């Protein structure tokens, strides 16, 4: 039963990724913690692996529409590879409860930013009626 819930929430996380360009991770992590009972660190590690197929398919679809600037993507990707090790060290050094509460606050900030975007359709943030 909890497996079915995970599949449904995984699907919902994918829709979120396609609609807003935020990776499904923001839904994957709490699902893995609350439904499957993973620790916060195990859930975050597993979420990064789980978003790989989604971002690969998403990037492929977007590149077919000419929406990928490959040089920019490569430079950001290379920079992030350096930053990732720092993030892993911080996550593993923090107590479990502290990391979980930090993640919850991050989630609330993301929710606020998405709501803000919905309520300000004239903003420069990406939407379906963006001009190229």
């Amino acid at each position, binding site marked *: 039963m909890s497996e079915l819930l995970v599949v449904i929430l*995984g699907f919902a*996380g*994918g*829709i979120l990724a*396609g*609609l*807003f360009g*935020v*990776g*499904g*991770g*923001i*839904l*994957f*992590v*709490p699902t893995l913690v609350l439904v499957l009972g*993973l620790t916060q*660190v*195990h859930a*975050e*590690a*597993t979420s990064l*692996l*789980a*978003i*790989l197929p*989604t*971002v690969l398919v*998403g*990037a492929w679809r*977007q*590149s077919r*529409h000419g*929406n*990928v600037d490959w040089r*920019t*993507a490569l430079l*950001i*990707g290379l*920079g*992030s590879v350096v*930053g*990732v*090790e*720092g*993030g892993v060290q911080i*996550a*593993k050094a923090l107590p479990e409860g502290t990391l979980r*509460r930090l*993640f919850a*606050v991050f*989630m609330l900030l*993301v*929710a606020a930013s*998405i709501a803000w975007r*919905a*309520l300000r359709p004239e903003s*420069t*943030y*990406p939407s379906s009626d963006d001009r190229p």
Partner: protein
Amino acid sequence: MSVRLLAIGLVAGVFSALFGVGGGIIIVPLLVVAGLSGRTATGTSLAAITLTAAAGAIAYGFHGDLKPGAAALIGLPAVGGVLLGVELQQRLTSKMLTLGFALLLTAVGIRLLV
């Protein structure tokens, strides 16, 4: 410009690994500020995140923190979801849907806090 992009990546990489997310929520607005159009920012962010997420998964993998079965259970249905989400983005002006997702994230965030 190249230095600025590497710096954006560095910050996004720390956030990505710290919270187990792709980092698009950080990358997309910074690319828009850097002058990319919204659509290109979203597409470019997804391409960059493939490197970020792979690096993060490998780094955590060295510490033995990965659960591949759970990753498949949640990650494979998401591929279907992202295809649907991209279609919805073309067809809807989805203010209610967006606010619904914001509400869902708020509820789960509060559930994690208490």
